[in-house]
């Protein structure tokens, strides 16, 4: 057995850094804590790459397939005789892949933030939170069991909450952080119920046991517990609810656009590359269970993914805040990944969707982090989030411009950039198993190209806006990560994912299917062309188009009024129709009843009190008449 115990350090280093900078951060120079965080992350990145290389190549026996192995495990809590919560490190293709993604993006963001956050009062705090997040995310990725995943899932949620609300003096940031936390918390409730059901049925939390083809989970197939679905299907749907909340799937997506209130590096790290794909990762983790015993749950995953991607793409076409456009784009791309998992089968070439989903996760992390960091550089230069305040920036921000363009081309799926490969695999997988979803995704591919280039042209071309300060290129700490990520976005598509990350650990043959690839490239180009025509120069055509769609445009612009529905549900229904009556009921009915008892006793005491008036003559009267009565009774009547 090859010793991987050192992987324990991967999550522990950020944790130690978090404790250190969190407790002592305000005592040292801001930059020191930033450098400590970055150095820690550098070590983590090195370890992760080392692990990946060892796991995928040097320690791998040719042709044997990749198995999962537990590098480390300790008991954390003992629940019942059968259920024990462990903490540990699990290595298998997807966790190692995620390790690379998380550490790379996190490292880039750490470097980038040295420039971006410079001078901010909460610099040390920012790095402490970043380390906390990285710790939690790595713990989630390396979880050996579903409960450990849940633990870190919550920790990830809270660090996301802390980072979204980083500018805590801004009410909108506070509201956004609250919203993000509560919505995902609600989803996590589903996750928890799912875990409860799953663990009860299978008596284990352990991933290796759960996904093993002879494991207890597989024995649960079939049967109909409720509404025609089996118990385990329901359990997995609930688990997926947790994933959908974290991954901002429709209809639990509403927190993601608001989460853009956080600092831009945070959006890049958490809300684009890592945390939001946790849902995908969760489904991928349990994929054998989904695929073998609960195909119905997998259909749910596929459709939720498909609908989300279309929904988000439409909204993205109408938004003007660049970070929100990117947020909807993220949601749309995650929809892709979910869909890929949802349409996938298990084993061999059937598992193409699985591979494609993970592949897309990987490439998406690169180009979306790049887009966000680019957007950060733009915001850094312009001090605005709104694309209407921008235009003609290509002259001022050459590096940002180039890297941003690369990212846009990648997401539009043009060969030979990485986005093309991963997206193509997804479309192929959908094409072979589910036609309606394929059509949706095909349309989304065009929309994606359109709105990304709308964004691109609005920022870098279009009108020549006059700025108060001449925008200048970001410092090297910010541009270097952009370049590195651009490199990743361009070349990560050539990674042989079909050999590395597959549903059953065995490599299979994958090739480009031209029947799907060519139309998808064409529709991408079509989207780019339309965007070019409309937005490269200032023109009235966007407004015309918007008018042409009429109320549909208005709906999309208002995000289909999802926020309003939620607001209605929370403010009106929960606050006014549940919480307020409960509070009233408690004060007036329950407490009123208690007070009533007290009042009745007091009244009766008041009545009796008259007898004990303190008036001596009354006492005397009672005494005399009492004596008389007693004498009559005992002397005469007895």
């Amino acid at each position, binding site marked *: 057995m090859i010793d991987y115990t050192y992987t324990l350090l991967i999550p522990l280093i950020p944790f130690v850094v978090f404790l250190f900078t969190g407790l002592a951060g305000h005592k040292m120079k801001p930059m020191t804590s930033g450098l400590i965080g970055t150095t820690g992350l550098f070590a983590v990145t090195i370890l992760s790459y080392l692990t990946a290389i060892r796991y995928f190549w040097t320690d791998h026996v040719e042709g044997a397939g990749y198995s999962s192995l537990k590098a480390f495990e300790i*008991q954390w809590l003992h629940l019942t005789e059968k259920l024990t919560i462990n903490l540990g490190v699990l290595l298998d293709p997807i966790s190692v892949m995620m390790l690379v993604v998380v550490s790379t993006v996190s490292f880039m963001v750490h470097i980038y933030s040295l420039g971006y956050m410079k001078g901010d009062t909460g610099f040390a705090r920012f790095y402490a939170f970043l380390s906390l997040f990285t710790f939690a995310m790595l713990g989630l990725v390396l979880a050996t069991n579903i409960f450990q995943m849940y633990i870190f899932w919550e920790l990830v949620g809270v660090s996301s909450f802390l980072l979204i609300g980083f500018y805590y003096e801004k009410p909108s940031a506070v509201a956004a952080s609250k919203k993000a936390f509560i919505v995902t918390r609600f989803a996590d409730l589903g996750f928890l119920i799912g875990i409860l059901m799953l663990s009860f049925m299978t008596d284990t939390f352990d991933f290796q046991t759960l996904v093993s083809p002879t494991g207890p989970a597989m024995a649960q197939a079939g049967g109909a517990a409720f509404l025609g679905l089996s118990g385990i299907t329901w359990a997995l749907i609930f688990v997926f609810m947790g994933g959908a909340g974290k991954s901002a799937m429709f209809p639990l997506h509403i927190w993601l656009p608001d989460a853009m209130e956080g600092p831009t590096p945070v959006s890049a790290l958490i809300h684009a590359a890592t945390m939001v794909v946790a849902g995908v990762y969760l489904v991928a983790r349990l994929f054998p269970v989904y695929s073998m015993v609960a195909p119905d749950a997998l259909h749910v995953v596929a459709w939720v993914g498909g609908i989300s991607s279309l929904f988000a793409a439409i909204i993205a076409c109408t938004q003007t805040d660049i970070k929100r456009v990117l947020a909807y784009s993220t949601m749309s791309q995650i929809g892709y990944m979910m869909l890929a998992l949802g349409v996938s089968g298990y084993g061999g070439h059937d598992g193409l969707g699985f591979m494609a989903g993970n592949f897309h996760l990987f490439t998406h992390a690169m180009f979306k982090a790049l887009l966000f960091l680019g957007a950060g550089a733009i915001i850094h230069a312009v001090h605005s989030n709104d694309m209407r305040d921008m235009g003609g920036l290509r002259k001022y921000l050459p590096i940002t411009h180039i890297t941003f363009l690369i990212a846009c081309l990648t997401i539009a799926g043009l060969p030979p950039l990485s986005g093309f490969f991963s997206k193509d695999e997804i479309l192929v997988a959908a094409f072979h198993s589910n036609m309606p979803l394929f059509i949706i995704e095909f349309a989304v591919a065009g929309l994606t190209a359109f709105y990304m280039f709308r964004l691109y042209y609005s920022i870098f071309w279009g009108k020549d806006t006059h700025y108060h300060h001449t925008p200048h290129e970001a410092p090297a700490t910010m541009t270097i990560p952009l370049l590195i990520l651009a490199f990743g976005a361009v070349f990560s598509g050539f990674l042989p994912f079909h050999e590395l990350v597959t549903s059953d650990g065995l490599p299979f043959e994958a090739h480009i299917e031209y029947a799907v690839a060519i139309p998808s490239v064409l529709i991408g180009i079509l989207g780019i062309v339309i965007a070019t025509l409309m937005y490269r120069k200032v023109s009235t055509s966007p407004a015309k188009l918007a008018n042409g769609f009429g109320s549909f445009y208005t709906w999309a612009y208002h995000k289909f009024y999802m926020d309003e529905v939620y607001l209605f549900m929370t403010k009106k229904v929960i606050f006014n129709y549940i919480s307020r009556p409960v509070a009233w009921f408690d004060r007036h009915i329950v407490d009123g009843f208690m007070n009533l008892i007290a009042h009745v006793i007091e009244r009766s005491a008041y009545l009796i009190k008259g007898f004990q008036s303190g008036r001596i003559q009354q006492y005397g009267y009672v005494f005399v008449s009492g004596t008389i009565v007693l004498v009559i009774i005992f002397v005469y009547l007895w």
Partner: protein
Amino acid sequence: MNILSLFVLIPVLTSVAIVFTKNMKQTRVASAIGMSIQLILAAILVFLYLNERQAGNTAEMLFTYDALWFPSLNIHYAVGVDGISVAMIALTGVVVFAGIFASWNMEFLTREFFISLILLATGVFGFFISIDLFTMFLFYEVAVIPMYLLIGIWGSGPKEYSAMKLTLMLMGGSALLMVGLLGIYFYSAPETGILTWNLLEISKINIPIEMQRFLFPFTFIGFGILGALFPFHTWSPDGHASAPTAVSMLHAGVLMKLGGYGAFRVAIFLMPDAAQEQAWIFLILTSISVVYGAFGAIWQKDLKYINAYSSVSHCGLVLFAVLMMNQTAFNGAIIQMISHGLMTALFFALIGMIYGRTHTRMINEMGGLMKVMPFLGVVYVIAGLASLGLPGLSGFVAEMTIFFGAFQHTDFFHRFLTIMATTSIVVTAVYILRVVGILLLGPIKNDHFLHLEDAKWHERLSTITLVLAIAAIGIAPLWLSDMINVSLAPIVNKISMTGFEFTSLF
């Protein structure tokens, strides 16, 4: 000298010492020394206990001591601890210690205040070490009665009303409890005829089922009132709102735990048959408590009310778990008691400190406090996160253990209630974040707040002690959980002897 008796003796000696102190400084130093010794003693007890268990001592109760106290009723001063009581004693030690430092600046009648506070602590410690039902009850009353003075004299707002309400409702509980305990006493020896108050001896026999049916509700509700059982919880919001800081801490932190502990130790342990039969009624009530308390907290505007309702919800979860009656749920209940004790004490300490600075507890009058008092703000957020069950802090461990324990029941009724109870974690998040958002974050609402100071050393000491305890349980729960688990075995055995099937009710 038995180590357990020290737990009662030291507070008493401290109170005596306080009588002879001359000014505020001496008084608080005396109390701080006394309660620090108490805390150290609690730590030593945990250590000794674990050692003893390690050495293979499998007796149900350790460090027992028994002295006949009142022969004609066979009342003993009988003490002894198992893992559960040791855990509760450790909790009490921590909370009392923190409470002393939280009331460091009590200027009005300092001596009397600390004496009452320590008297209350004496009662609580005594309760947890007793295994004689009568002494237990005695200490229970000792703990409850100083509360009246503490709220009535040192409280704020409608303090007389609250003190009266709290005391009367708790006394009502005691009255029910007394009936229950007397009943247990008179049915404690069906064969030998020598009646006993001793918990262990009673547990060896079976009280006749007819009597159990009658006595269980008395005992359970009697303890339940102290444990904020719906609908007998209304003393809690008013009482907490009026009580001074340290009293709220002690009250919510440990005194309410007397209810849960008693319900578990006496009601369930001694009358398992009736408990199985009647659990469903109380389960419904406690599930209501859990959800209802959480929803009630959303609408409140006073920090202490919010916390009081949150306590209703969390303590409801304790009773809920106790009634689920299996090992995991019991374990969860005990951890939840400890966890809630720590975090609610922390909350009340913080609220007291904030109130001491801003002179208001209305959240809509405050805002942006994080900027002016970062230390208190951060600790408040930590307390809030513990309360909403963040992994790594104690609340999570407790809640998860409870939910998994409760989910062991296979029937629809229990499942449904469990899922209902789990929804409370979302609602908890809502009200905690609402408070944090309004109170600490956002812009500073009042210029007057700009001049406020952050925590003083004693406040830091008080809060850090609690935070450390919360984090310790949250990060490494296994030792605590194992310590409790071992002690649960006799109780679970006794319960499993009853052949009652819940489903037969329907």
